[in-house]
């Protein structure tokens, strides 16, 4: 029995190393000098670390502006997504209205629609609406999330009808029932939706690449590719910038992963 535990621990350690080593190596390379890397002097246990790459990247590119753009776009997208998802999810779970099931099926259908199918047309639409090259060109289309509506509905169905009827009997309107009774019960859902949306917006690449044109409005992933185009295989600078892109979400992920994992369970995603 004990032998089995030892074997399993070894196996898990091996898998863990394979997963973590690339991230660890990114950090090491980001903190090493370019000369040392090219001369093959950078080992698994580095002996000369430097912040030179960060200085070089921050001096040559508007990294702080790109960082700010990413924060603004990801936060706005997450807020807009969560608010619209919660409202719609609640209506589909507990309110009766004509066309409810047809509408829900239509929304679900968009889940299998690859964004890339419509990217040419979406680009034209965004241009027609005079949004091309603005924050809104990224925020509005990425906020249209059928998955969030679906997860919210699944969660709200679990709230007993009696509870809502009691609030209504006390004379609360739909809005009051929603904000005072339903929302306080939905904290785990809100956390999961917010985090999922923040993460996917922060890491999004294909659509911002199409929708943004000015250097000043780039998000971090686009800036990362731009920088790589300028520097070529200058891995120490690229990895320093990659770390700036990745670190905030890794931190958020580590702090909130309990909610995240539980959210998978409670929203019926299994």
């Amino acid at each position, binding site marked *: 029995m004990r032998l089995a535990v030892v074997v399993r621990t070894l196996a898990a350690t091996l898998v*863990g190393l394979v997963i973590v080593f690339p991230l660890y190596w990114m950090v090491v390379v980001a903190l090493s000098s370019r000369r040392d890397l*090219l001369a093959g002097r950078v080992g698994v246990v580095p002996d000369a670390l430097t912040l030179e790459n960060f200085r070089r990247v921050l001096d040559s590119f508007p990294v702080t502006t790109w960082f700010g753009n990413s924060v603004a776009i990801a936060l706005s997208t997450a807020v807009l997504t969560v608010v619209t998802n919660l409202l719609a999810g609640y209506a589909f779970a507990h309110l009766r209205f004509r066309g409810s099931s047809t509408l829900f099926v239509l929304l679900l259908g968009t889940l299998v629609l690859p964004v*890339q199918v419509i990217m040419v047309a979406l680009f*034209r639409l965004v241009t027609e609406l005079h949004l091309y090259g603005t924050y809104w060109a990224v925020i*509005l289309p990425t906020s249209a999330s059928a998955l969030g509506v679906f997860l919210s509905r699944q969660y709200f169905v679990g709230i007993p009808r009696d509870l809502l009827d009691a609030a209504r009997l006390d004379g609360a309107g739909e809005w009051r029932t929603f904000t005072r009774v339903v929302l306080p019960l939905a904290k785990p859902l809100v956390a999961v939706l917010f985090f999922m949306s923040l993460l996917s917006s922060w*890491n999004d690449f294909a659509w911002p690449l199409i929708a943004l044109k000015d250097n000043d409005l780039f998000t971090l992933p686009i800036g*990362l590719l731009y920088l790589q185009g300028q520097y070529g295989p200058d891995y120490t600078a690229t*990895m320093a910038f990659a770390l700036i892109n990745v670190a905030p979400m890794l931190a958020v*992920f*580590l702090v909130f992963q309990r909610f995240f994992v539980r959210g998978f369970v409670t929203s019926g995603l299994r």
Partner: protein
Amino acid sequence: MRSSARVEARAAYGFVGPSVVLLGLFVFVPLAWALLISLQRTDGFGSGTFVGLDNYTRLLGDDRFWRSAGNTVLFTALVTPLSMLGGLGAALLLDSALPARPVFRSLLILPMAVSGVATALIGLLFFDENTGVLDSVLSSLHLPEASWQSGSVPAFASVVLVTLWWRVGFNMLIYLTALQGVDPLLHESAMLDGASWWQRLRHVTVPALRPATFFLLVVNVIFSFQVFDVVFVLTGGGPRDATSVLVTYAYDQGFAQRDQGYGAALGMVLLVVTLAFTGVQWRLGRGRDADQ
């Protein structure tokens, strides 16, 4: 009573309104528009000319299209089963008696938080033919180095490996969640009947995981059909189209070559394939559930 139903309906329309407007405007309108554009010859400037099904018939004789479609299928056929098996294996490992389980779980799902571009750039760092880590590992083991960037097969393998690193954690998380919902009594009674570990896995665990497997199969295939970030940044579709997939080809035609009608037609093909696959999976999945 009737008026209260009307009040409820009016409130409901207010609640679903914002989502419906967003999805209608930014999903359904572009979808209809994409179909229209796919019937035109247009570079995006001025109005296009209607050419009927020309863009679609052109696909039939386009070698790069068939190459990209083949690569997409091959990529999907490799990544889906491998990432699901890897995820299942890791989930079984983490569901058993093991010290520091939460730590291992956190480590394995870390790549989920990393952007596709950063993932691909880390891949470049590893697969670089001059300074890459993998070639030095291979040569220190006295194995031949692989031409990850200039050889067709190694380049394709590098895209698959990077994607597996990125996606196994997600599959593991879903399987782990599902495993925790398996009734322990089933295992206990199977053990009393003298079932071995392997027999319990085959006859108790795997059937209990069927809904999760169904969900993951659909999701992994859809993700794989849409692979973009990793290919675009890691190989750019090269060398010589060896790693070109439908989405990178559609992007190239629609935005780099500005042949938007052709790009839209490529998108519609991808949609039809996705719908066909999901439809078949849905019927099979439902059919199996009905059998039980």
